[in-house]
């Protein structure tokens, strides 16, 4: 039981636990906080896998930007009081069941295939380092990079169109 294993199991429990809390905590704000927790756990996993770049980006983009945005919206609508109950019993129940079934099917399909035994390169290897990724990203992946910029552009335009108050609507 090496340290890596311990860390792996710890982070896994953390991730799953806080993920469950996300969906079961009544109060949206709590959900958000738990989600952030999950993200940290996942970032931990990244570090464990020696993918520092992604670990950092994950913290910055997700836990940092996105989640704050969520928090901001929730506060804006001041939904911090546990406003909405879970939807009607059997529907929630059905949701859990079907979700669980999906999990079962996948695991059942995968559990005894040869691939599963493959080892994963832990906390070594330099592909996850920013230097390497940067090279690849700007050499081989220029096109998608540009495309994603266009994507952002459209998202931005959209956010503006949707978000901004129409002048005629004030009148």
């Amino acid at each position: 039981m090496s340290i890596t294993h311990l860390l792996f199991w710890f982070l896994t429990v953390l991730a799953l636990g806080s993920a469950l809390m996300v969906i079961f905590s009544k109060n949206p704000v709590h959900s958000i906080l738990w989600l952030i927790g999950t993200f940290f756990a996942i970032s931990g996993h990244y570090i464990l896998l020696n993918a520092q770049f992604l670990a950092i980006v994950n913290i910055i983009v997700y836990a940092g930007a996105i989640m704050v945005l969520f928090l901001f919206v929730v506060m804006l609508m001041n939904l911090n009081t546990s406003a909405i109950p879970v939807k009607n019993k059997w529907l929630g129940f059905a949701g859990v069941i079907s979700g669980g079934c999906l999990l079962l099917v996948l695991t059942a399909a995968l559990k005894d295939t040869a691939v599963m035994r493959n080892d994963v390169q832990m906390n070594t290897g330099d592909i996850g380092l920013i230097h390497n990724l940067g090279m690849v990203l700007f050499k081989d992946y220029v096109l998608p990079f540009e495309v994603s910029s266009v994507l952002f552009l459209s998202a931005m335009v959209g956010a503006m169109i949707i978000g901004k108050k129409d002048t005629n609507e004030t009148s």
Partner: protein
Amino acid sequence: MAAIILAAIWGVVMMFSGLYIKNKAMAKYIAVTGILVLLLVNALEYYNIWRIDFDVRGLQKFTAFGTVFNTIAFGATLLYFLLNGKEFEEVGKDVFDYYALIFFSLCGVTLVSSFNSLLMLFLGIELISIPMYILAGSDKRNLKSNEASLKYFLMGAFSTGIMLMGIAFLYGATGSFYVGAPNTPGMEPMVAIGMVFLLIAIAFKVSAAPFHFWTPDVYDGTPTVFTSYMATVVKVASFIGFLKLFDGAFGKSHGEWQLLVAILTAATLFIGNITAVFQQSVKRMLAYSSIAQAGFMLLSVFSLNTFGREGLIIYAAAYSIASIGSFAVLIKLKDHSIEGFNGLAKSHPFLALMNVVFLLSLTGIPATAGFFAKYYVLMGAIKSGQHLWLVIFAVLMAAVSAYYYFRVIQAMYFKEGTPEVKPVSGAYKTTLWVAAVLIILIGLFPSVLTKALYA
């Protein structure tokens, strides 16, 4: 390549011209210019006269198939702009931005029509979808529009997640994102899982039952002018992606998943056609009919052979033109229920006649493009030799489809009434006429399209 770049650039152009040009009417002309430019560069590329080329590391692969499809998509969009310029202005004040978004989505379309890597497929589909989320909600004060956009967005994002899971599994199995990577005869579980995830995600995009639920609501809630675009260009683009993906990635293991597609097809045909029968609103009816048509297009994926591919191209053209035309007529009417069409033949014989052509084409009557569209995909399906029952089922459903398309014709020609119709310009009429002529031409000589694939 040039088309991709230009589409993106023109989107930006539209945005900025929005800042400086106050006259909304201008937007239409700029957009039309843009489309014409796109068509031009596309043609140049097709005939190898001039093309932008730089090493994309094999992320994209430009084929005649893709280019021909681009032409169809741009052409359809051109018709669409020409027919709906007025309505753009009625939706809201950000006219230029609407056009910009449509150009961005066109950029996505061009990506999807030529992707060679799952990454590009993913980006392309996102680039198509995100503008649509917004356009769906562009009529901000209208709760229906809000609802449409919300539903579209939530379910769209969900399906994105599913698609990514699929891609991840394929990557895990093959160690590469290139389309050809998993293309091997057998199918190990991990690939199978990835395939099913992808299938679900794309089935959602092309609104194949039982992943179609968003379609009627979204199409219904979205401002009609944008529904017309969503239901045509976007949908057929997703189909091209679908076909290219399953052709490239799982072509060799066709037999493994044909049954799944068969089931999806049957379900789509059934739900689309049967449910459309009862609709009172023509807009919603067209939404369901678009599901039904998707069922037929699925046949091409199901058969995955030459006829299927040619069929999908013809279908893309026939379906897009006919639907855009039909929507363009619908949009001119105040009342979107079937009764709204009563007596149209008397008050506006031209509109009625054109609409008849489009509806006949959608039904698949010979001498209209719709016939050969259906004809080719059926031929493909029969050729594939599997599941003949599916074909029989399909044609019976086509017979059902006659039922609801002809209800509109009956309303226009055989019922008395005085429909309120917005004023229609001469240009509008001309464009409509051109669309109808195109339908007939393809209906008489489909070879023009099919031949182009092999030039």
